[in-house]
């Protein structure tokens, strides 16, 4: 019964989020990683590259399903999900891994629309009891409607 409750979240989609790809945000992101790649930093280098401008590193905006205070629209689904999971006995969440498919470059000035779906929830019986594996799929489209990337993030709930 409880697991059916958990599985009722499969296929739920968060309110799409619109992300503006700002130059300063790209540079801060690269700086936080310690990444000095000129494609992310240098405008002249970007102009002369095959992209024609500074681009965002792969994985930029990789995680829109996050904590309160940042991406509030999307965290509504997360908050509802986490609250229900805690109520049915899975209060702990562990970030287990990340998977990406990259299709097209993300340039400075692009506007991305990120759409997050709870793609799957599976039950695993482990040494420490029952665990849930939840996969969140986020699809990123640019302002031309082109799918630029898909991210899949795996969480373990126990």
């Amino acid at each position: 019964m409880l697991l059916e409750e958990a599985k009722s979240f499969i296929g739920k989609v968060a309110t799409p989020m619109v992300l503006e790809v700002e130059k300063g945000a790209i540079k801060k992101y690269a700086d936080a990683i310690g990444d000095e790649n000129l494609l992310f930093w240098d405008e002249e280098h970007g102009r002369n590259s095959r992209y024609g401008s500074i681009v965002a590193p792969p994985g930029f905006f990789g995680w829109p399903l996050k904590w309160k205070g940042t991406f509030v629209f999307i965290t509504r689904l997360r908050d509802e999900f986490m609250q229900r999971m805690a109520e049915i006995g899975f209060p702990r969440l562990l970030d287990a891994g990340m998977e990406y498919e990259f299709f097209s470059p993300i340039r400075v000035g692009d506007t991305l629309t990120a759409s997050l779906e709870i793609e799957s929830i599976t039950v695993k019986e482990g040494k420490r009891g029952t665990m849930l594996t939840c996969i969140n799929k986020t699809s990123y489209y640019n302002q031309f409607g082109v799918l630029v990337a898909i991210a899949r993030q795996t969480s373990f709930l126990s």
Partner: protein
Amino acid sequence: MTRNQLYWEDVAEGAELPALAKTATTVMLVKWASVSGDFNPLHYDLPFAESQGIGKPIVHGQLKRAWLIQLMTDWIGDQGWLKKFSCQFRGMDYPLNMKSISEPEEDKVTHWCKGNVIAKRIENGEHLVDCEIWVEDEKGMHTTPGTATVILPSRQG
């Protein structure tokens, strides 16, 4: 940072990728919290980390993910394309504390990002290279294993 472009023909199966050194510090984790939006105090608040049974703050899994992506983009150069990427967060990693506003308590590398070429193939006209990649801690533990597939330019055009 401008390097010679890597071509598909330059890559041999079994070859090692140039390793990427990282020094994780508490300052680095605060910066990552800011750009990623992950403000879980587990990553910067010692009493909170202790209360969670972790002992001390740990490196964000998603920051290690970003390091591994840098390993790939550094290697493939401006003409390469990271097509697929995955990593799993298997083990905890710890940052160095700071002894001054700019210097960590020890001057050393805490983590290495590494990889090997597993296979080369041509599919739908794309010159692909499949790699296994990982983040390695000071004990040699692979805390964050993963895989990556890249498209490289070909000298044949």
